[in-house]
């Protein structure tokens, strides 16, 4: 199936509905505003190109989130390789105004999330930012519900430890 001109409208509605969510997932995973924009754009492009492979018996957002998570992971891996190749690369601590305007809590949480391994970080993001159930998280990540729970519980504990180490108190 290819989108015709009429479908373009339909796809624009999909972009309108999910753009912000996709952008936020990407940002929480990669912690970079510009990269999050690139990932969002690529995720929608891939969704459009591979719409044939979407199985309507699954929820559309699960499929779209899966693309986003995979794209973010690819992006992180690519970045890791680049940074390994160039040890002198400067870490950009400056964030765009859109992000620096956010609360101290938001930034602290993001910092702590970035300290976590990807597997823990992603379940916490999907559970707490996107309110996905264990099963939905399992669908997005292609892992059993049991593994979701295990990673989620461990992730919370690790996050607590990091935040306490940072001296954060409620």
């Amino acid at each position: 199936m290819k989108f015709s001109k009429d479908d373009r409208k339909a796809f624009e509605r999909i972009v309108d509905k999910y753009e912000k969510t996709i952008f936020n997932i990407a940002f929480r995973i990669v912690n970079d505003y510009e990269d999050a924009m690139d990932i969002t754009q690529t995720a929608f492009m891939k969704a459009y190109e591979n719409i044939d492979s979407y199985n309507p018996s699954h929820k559309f957002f699960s499929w779209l989130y899966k693309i986003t998570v995979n794209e973010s992971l690819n992006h992180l891996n690519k970045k890791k390789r680049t940074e390994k190749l160039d040890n002198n690369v400067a870490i950009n601590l400056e964030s765009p105004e859109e992000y620096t305007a956010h609360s101290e809590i938001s930034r602290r949480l993001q910092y702590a999330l970035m300290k976590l391994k990807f597997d823990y970080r992603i379940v916490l993001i999907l559970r707490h930012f996107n309110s996905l159930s264990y099963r939905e998280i399992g669908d997005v990540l292609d892992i059993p519900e049991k593994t979701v729970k295990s990673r989620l519980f461990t992730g919370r504990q690790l996050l607590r430890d990091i935040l306490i180490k940072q001296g954060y108190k409620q």
Partner: protein
Amino acid sequence: MIEERFIELMNGEIDGANSREESLELKRYLDTYPEAKRYYEDLKAVTQMFDQAEELTPPPYLRKTIITSIFEREGEEERKSVFTSVLAGLRLTFSRRYAYSFTAGIIAGILLFAIFSWIVPWRHPAEDLDNLLGTITSGNLREITTVGPIDFHLPSVTGSARIRYTEDRILAAIQLSAESEIQVLFQHDENVRFEGLRSIKSCNHEMRVTGEETELSHIGICEYIVVFEDVHRSHPHIGFKIFADGSLLFERSIVPGQE
């Protein structure tokens, strides 16, 4: 040390996944063990941080970038696929054998064109006589003397006339629009003979030819060429008159080279 089961119940409580009984069991446990309660409070605080963290707003141009990148690329791919199909088609049909035939055809065409151009002399560009096709002109069309155009803005007649003298012919190209019937009269000496008439814009006309006069009567818009033979190739003068209702409206003696 907190029991593993109660850590699970704590997380279940945070996620709203516990049954009523599990929630009560956890509550009793937390009431009994302050260390476990502290741990549970910490976990709750961590998860509450997610609620307090604001969502980021993507830049307003991102939507447009996404839509444009998808649908422009789609258009490009369609164009590419058309181009690729054309190329593929050419690849299928364009074998070496066809290439030789094609080249031979081109060369033969160029040669034929060159021969034809050499045989048939070019007409003088300033004197395009294409509109004389069908008349009985002959001789050397390169040497032409033209008189005119003579423009008429008479009370009931408008139009123009152009007289051409070739080596052995006199061609009078007339274009006239008349509200009432008019007579166009050519007067010449015995060395000039009427040869033919070609109507370009057809109209009802009558023609009268005598030894030294050729007369055309017509009404409305008419365009025609009258051809005379210049028997001695002397380029004689021609008398040209226009009458309407018996009255002379125009008179001119055409002399080649005097205009």
